[in-house]
């Protein structure tokens, strides 16, 4: 049960990563490889600021902001200096590896002794469920702090998902959608495509950095390696989500990324429970994405079968 609560919470945190990847890879169709670096940067900046006695919420937002700026660098390398998209992302991701170590000063920063968002969660948990450390749900003992974190994360991700949905109904959001759908038309309607690309990657990477900052606080440490594999994981969630909702409308895609991320975490938790070696996780994630890309037919048939099962 604790494992379930933990993987649900992680899935929720990583749904912010999936939202970010949805924006760069799907909405503006920019294959942005900054992701792994930006995810770590969010955690690293947050952790360093927490050590500098920053208020945790502000430290978290600064982490997101820093990652967003990393995204604008990638976008600018492409739009201003005409560097290929993939290469722009790779350059920034590689540079971020050093930047992250510089920011943190060492490769791991433990956060347990510092006030973080988890400290707030703990306080709220005590307000909600009293002093006891554990809750009884049916007949399982679950740490009440984890349950509170799960509830708050649920509210937060739903809120951010709704905000994104509303954003894509504004004039600016529509222009962003159109940039990915038909950039020639969009430009002929007076949208500065380069600026829109920079803005999109800022937004995408800020969400990714926020995800990294939250994950670091949830797991209790920031680590220079924490972003490794996040790009593929996020893409896997987005693909899984797309086949779950079965349409390309942005509202559905947001819901899909959310569900895909949580479901993917659950699948991983189950696989680990069955005795999967954790070291093989990234290989399996990569194979999953490979399969979804190479056999989209089989994949979407499987998904619609799954949709049928869910409805039934």
């Amino acid at each position, binding site marked *: 049960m604790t494992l379930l609560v933990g993987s649900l919470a992680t899935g929720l945190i990583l749904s912010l990563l999936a939202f970010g990847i949805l924006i760069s890879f799907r909405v503006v169709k920019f294959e942005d490889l900054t992701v792994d670096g930006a995810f770590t940067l969010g955690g690293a900046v947050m952790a360093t600021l927490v050590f500098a006695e920053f208020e945790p919420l502000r430290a978290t937002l600064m982490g997101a902001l820093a990652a967003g700026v990393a995204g604008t660098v990638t976008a600018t390398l492409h739009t201003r200096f005409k560097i290929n998209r993939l290469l722009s992302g790779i350059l920034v991701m590689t540079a971020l590896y050093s930047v992250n170590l510089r920011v943190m000063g060492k490769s791991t920063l433990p956060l347990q002794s510092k006030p973080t968002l988890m400290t707030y969660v703990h306080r709220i948990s005590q307000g909600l469920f009293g002093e006891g450390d554990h809750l009884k749900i049916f007949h399982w003992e679950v740490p009440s702090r984890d349950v509170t974190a799960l509830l708050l994360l649920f509210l937060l991700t739903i809120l951010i998902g709704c905000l994104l949905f509303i954003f894509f109904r*504004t004039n600016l959001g*529509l222009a962003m959608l159109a940039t990915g759908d038909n950039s020639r038309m969009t430009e002929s309607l007076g949208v500065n*495509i380069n600026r829109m690309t920079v803005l999109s990657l800022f937004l995408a990477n800020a969400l990714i950095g926020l995800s990294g900052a939250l994950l670091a606080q949830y797991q209790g440490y920031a680590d220079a390696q924490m972003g490794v594999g996040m790009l593929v994981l996020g893409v896997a969630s987005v693909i899984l989500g797309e086949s779950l909702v079965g349409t390309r409308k942005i509202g559905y895609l947001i819901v899909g990324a959310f569900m895909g991320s949580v479901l993917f975490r659950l699948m991983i938790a189950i696989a680990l429970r069955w005795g999967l070696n954790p070291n093989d996780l990234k290989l399996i994630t990569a194979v999953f994405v490979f399969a979804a890309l190479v056999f989209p037919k089989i994949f979407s048939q499987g998904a619609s079968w799954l949709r049928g099962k869910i409805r039934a």
Partner: protein
Amino acid sequence: MLEVTNAHKTFFPGTPNAVHALRGVDLKIERGSWVCVIGTNGSGKSTLLNAVAGGFLLDEGSIRIDGVDVSKWPEYRRAKLLGRVFQDPFSGTAPSMTLFENLALASRRGQARGLGLALNSTTQDELTKCVAEMELGLENRMDNPIGSFSGGQRQSLTLLMATLIRPRLLLLDEHTAALDPRSADQIIRLTKRSIEHDCLTTMMVTHSMQQAVSVGDRVIMMDQGKIVLDVSGPRKQRLRPRDLLAKFEELRRRQQLDETAADMLQTQYV
């Protein structure tokens, strides 16, 4: 209104693939005029329209719209002044966005785009009215993605989008070429109506001699990056397709002569 002076453009300069697509184009268009642009494939018609729209910057020469020099303006900035319809029906609309969303985008052409909701109920009503006025029965499909519409429908909608905010200059690049004859007729009808209704200044590239003589008040013919024929006023009214074909024939013969001469020079002196 539009003043193109000594426009030159070479693509891939300094390489074996260099194309001198515009070779000193001078063109002045009066406000309210409707100019048909004809010419063989590769003569530089689309390049001229792109130059005006800002798809690239000229190597030499200038472009003024209503007295303002826009030669250095990027495309998105010139968009405020221009409405465009492309040859390919897929170019002018965003396929996975709905008709409503496409029109909402067009209704803010050249304006700042902020965090206001794009489609409140008043704009929805106005946009639906505009679509209904086209009399194509598309007003019931406002929430369908544009990708589900036919080429002709898309082209009509692109035309509507280009003129939703009145453009200073309307640029049409063979916008009926990819359509079946019936849709093409319909688009021309809509084009006429919208140009007359809003008194638009228009440059229309066309592949059809018939179109060139039957609509508009001026015809220019391009050949090898230059304007080689410019007919307006009463002479334009009397112009027949065969006059234009004769001109094409003349150009072709002269070109062949040039080539034979070049061959001759080559064999004799190289």
